[in-house]
């Protein structure tokens, strides 16, 4: 089981950051790698169990299922159903924690998955770097660093 983890501090209150990311269908609004997204079946994006189908700016196509959403913990957990990456059993969580010392946000994004051993380092770097840290950087640019 491989693990990827990235964390950052975003210079905005956690509630404001959460407004951006709680919408499971809103990735194109804030993540630079995502071009377009829709919820399969046209249901609400905060319905646990819903599936988002989205296309990356490089053309890749993914489907992800919402496994858990918590407005109390500011956390969202999802799994990959289909992706161009060679990963299986991929489950990721994005979680926000208020930093009381300065009204900022500690953001953590982690994933566990299975993959061919020889590709593990590359995939961990891609996921922690381009996907997770790339998302944090975009949030920081949009909401304040």
């Amino acid at each position: 089981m491989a693990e990827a983890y990235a964390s950052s501090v975003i210079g905005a209150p956690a509630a404001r950051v959460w407004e951006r990311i709680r919408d499971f269908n809103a990735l194109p609004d804030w993540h630079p790698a995502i071009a377009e997204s829709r919820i399969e079946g046209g249901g609400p994006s905060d319905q646990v169990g819903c599936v988002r189908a989205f296309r990356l700016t490089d053309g890749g196509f993914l489907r992800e299922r919402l496994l858990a959403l918590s407005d109390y913990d500011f956390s969202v957990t999802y799994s990959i159903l289909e992706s161009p990456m060679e990963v299986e059993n991929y489950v990721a969580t994005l979680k926000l924690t208020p930093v009381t010392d300065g009204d900022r946000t500690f953001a953590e994004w982690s994933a566990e998955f299975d993959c061919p051993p020889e590709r593990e380092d590359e995939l961990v770097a891609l996921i922690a770097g381009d996907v997770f840290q790339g998302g944090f950087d975009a949030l920081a640019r949009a909401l304040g660093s």
Partner: protein
Amino acid sequence: MVRVRRTTVLDAPIDAVWRILRDFNGHDRWHPIVERSGLEDARRTDQVGAVRNFTIRSGERVREVLLTLSDRERRLRYAIVGSDLPLRDYVAELFLKPVTDGNRTFWSWSSRFRTPPGEEETLARLVGEEVYEAGFAGVRAALGLRAGPASPPPPAPRPAIGGTNAAVERPPSRLGSPPSPAATARPMDRGAAGAVEGEAMVIARHGGPEVFRAAPSPAPPPGPEEVRIRQTAVGVNYIDVYCRTGYFDLVQPPGAPGLEAAGTVIDVGSGVRHLAAGQRVAYACPPPGAYATVRTMPAALVIPLPDRIDDETAAAVLLKGMSAEFLLHRVHALEAGETVLVFAPAGGVGRLICQWAAHLGARVIGATSSEAKARAARTAGAHDVVLPGEASLEEQVMELTRGRGADVIYDGVGRDSFAHSVAALAVHGHLVSYGQASGDVGPFDIGSLAARSAKVSRPNFAHFTDTPEKVAAITGRLFDALERRVLRAEIGGRYPLREAAAAHRALEAGETIGSTILVPEAAAG
């Protein structure tokens, strides 16, 4: 059930922070409200089930049991099992997470508890601010970090002044900042042309305390880059004795010794922009002449006093505290876990070194001469104290350190202690000889250091404090430490200025505990 949570981000790698926090019994070294902490039943500090028994500054006793310790999650949980505080069923958790974006550390500290009815809010605030937030500040200080919340972008490491470690220096803002509106106000007493009447304690010749004489000492109007100060408290330092005896060639009769005082600005000369009439100020710098009611002196190294530092505190700790700052941060960059031997741990500089070194996470051993001073040293943070006895100083230090010796020794005693200090050093140890209260060290065989691959420093206060930028950096960290009560001024002797001779006699007799100050009569009355 009350719930409290505080979180912060520290500009330090997670392992450095966890090293400090995982020591369940080490909180008396970094938490400003924890006085002394001990473990019950001979358990180890990382033994789950261990009970730490400690006193907090307000006097209450607390016993807490370690419920969880995880090096993997960098998490610990503990509960209060006995306390004078009205906190019931108190269970707390703290954990660290890495901020991978910048090699920083997220720290969460939270608890839940019950209180007597109506006290929920007060106690929640007390726990959140005086325990958790104060703890954040304490660990920041222990790590040598800038006070206050870490800035979101990690600061680039910058070269530190005077060969310190990577501790972040505060920018020299105190002296270099643009003048505040108050500082540009017109000096009020400017029109009073001519000198301001005053009196100084001067030395008739170099010699014993009996050479002091009171003499009229008017302060002339300040010239360019000068300031005239009405002094309210004057600090007494051992260097004043050297000036009086002529050991240091700094004061020619009939001059006045003294390098440290606090007071209020009467007026300033042209070109002085960081000070203004009516402002509270202090200084710890040459030229000597502080034993006076009023004086006119160069303004560059005179600093405005923050409101929270009163005049007597400033006079009592400025020079000693600045010394402690560069001894602990610049001459030797003290690190958590090092063993420090401090001579004269009940004296002015020694006490501050003990407080600060313990706070930084060092193991502090004091070397002193009486039970009373040993108690004072322990109160200041010394974990152990060695006294003259059957075993020599170095034998006692070796026994306390299991044969290892001290990593750094702060020795202001000089002749009587020097050889013992060399023998008490650890391999690669550092002997910092910063004074000679018992007399000159004299000729010294450098070959004796080879037995320990040791080094010796002989720092000179002037070289660390000769520019406004250096003074601002040192006093910035010093005032922070005072404000956070890492350092506590203790004024052990307060004499009228005219009784300077008595103050010197007490200092030379080794009778003083804490700092000694002189109070000009006008200010005293």
